[in-house]
């Protein structure tokens, strides 16, 4: 499902997950990339959370890039300085439209 998000707009990525080690200090990062995750055009940064051992939600605010394009969301989960897992939401596209060179003539 495509979602249109305006450039510069901030949207919260609600990451719902279950980490099996309760009490583990972790971080989550949601970022947008158009090239498979190699280049981050926008990121939530490292959002810290503590694993509860059960299903929990981590909110990752992301400011949309100023450059228009079609992006995918990626999620990295780290704990103890180690990347625990990576996810790619390639089923849903994030469309960041940019309108430029506008001219109206009659």
């Amino acid at each position, binding site marked *: 499902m*495509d*979602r*249109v998000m*305006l450039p510069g707009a901030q949207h919260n990525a609600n990451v719902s997950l279950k980490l099996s080690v309760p009490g583990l200090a972790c971080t989550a990062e949601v970022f947008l990339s158009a090239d498979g995750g190699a280049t981050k055009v926008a990121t939530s940064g490292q959002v810290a959370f503590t694993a509860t051992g059960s299903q929990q939600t981590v909110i990752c605010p992301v400011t949309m890039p100023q*450059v*228009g*394009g*079609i992006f995918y969301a990626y999620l990295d989960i780290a704990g103890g300085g180690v990347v625990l897992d990576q996810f790619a939401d390639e089923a849903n596209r994030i*469309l*960041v*439209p*940019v*309108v*430029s*060179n*506008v*001219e*109206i*003539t*009659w």
Partner: protein
Amino acid sequence: MLTFQPGSTHIANVNLTVMPVGMECTAEVWLTRDGVQTAATSGLIAFTSTGARQQIQMPVVMPALPGEYLVYLDIASGGSLIDAFEASEHVTVPGQADIRVDAIVINPTSIVPNGAVNIQLQCTNYGGSDGERTIPIYINGVHKRDGIMTLAAGKSGAVNVAYTAFVEGTYEVTADNASASFVCSVPQPYSGTLTGIAKRTTGVGIAGAIVEATNDEGSWLGITDSSGHYNISLPAGTYQAKAKAAKFYDSSPQQFTVAGGETATVNFILQIMSVNKIKYLLAQTLTEGGYIYPNWQQLNFSLGDLVTLTLRFNMVTAYVKFGPMTVTRPDGQSFACRGGGFYHADNEPGLYYSQWQTGDTGNNPTFLTVPGTYLVSFQLFSSEDNVNWAQTDSFNIVLGIVS
């Protein structure tokens, strides 16, 4: 500044680049005076972004309300507004057309039943926009026709509408505050006739007499034929008629009335002019020079007579003589008269007379052979010493009219 007529449709050509490619978007161009209230809009025009510069055509119907409008462009996708722009160029919608009738001109203004008139509405567009107006035309207060007038702002023009009137009457034409009228009526027929005869007192008809019938609308003439009869066709009405002919006195006017299709009869009896017993008592005193005091004696003459002209005068102390006396007939021919001549007083004042006779020797025993007015003329000379003669006066005397 763009100026568009109210209600007119114009295409806003929107050129833009939308990234990313393939987005289903909508564009809306809308006009507003306050940035909030939409006065006119293209509506949502769907397009798919190409990622490159593309053009979207947005038809906008201009608002009816005159004013200056801001032009906004909204780009949306997926129900969300992507971006909004305000055009640097505003749109001005001038005031609406205001076409009014200034005057009505009808031609002709008088017709017969079933006749047509041309009703011309002279109009001016007092508004700020070009426009067209269907102008109701009322005939005697009833809406009968429409005049469709198209005028540019500030311009004047006319529209013509034909109208046929079927019955007699006066028709008042109104449109807006202008009005004019025309009349539909049956014309008066030229069917009336005046007839009659002009004749002498003896009952004999007079040929060539002129009969004239007059009223306020004009004058109609007729001439009698060889038997003295005449006929004049003239409009129904009331007239004064009189007859006249050469050598006759004019008749007294007679009033008559003739109706359409009918005949009135007026006869005339003309009195012939006669001079048989006309008498002239000519008396004249000359004062110039103070010497001669002629007294004209009564002159009696009649047609065919030999006329004697006698001049009586008083001689005082001068010598006097008379120049030749001539008589001029009505046909312009002049003849010398016998008589007159030279007289002198020799310092013996007294009453003298001189006589002339019309007619000369030979083939002209008399001059009174042509009907008409005769003129007698001669000169009078005087002298103190019987040597230095000077013309004292000249005379032109009308003898009379001879019939």
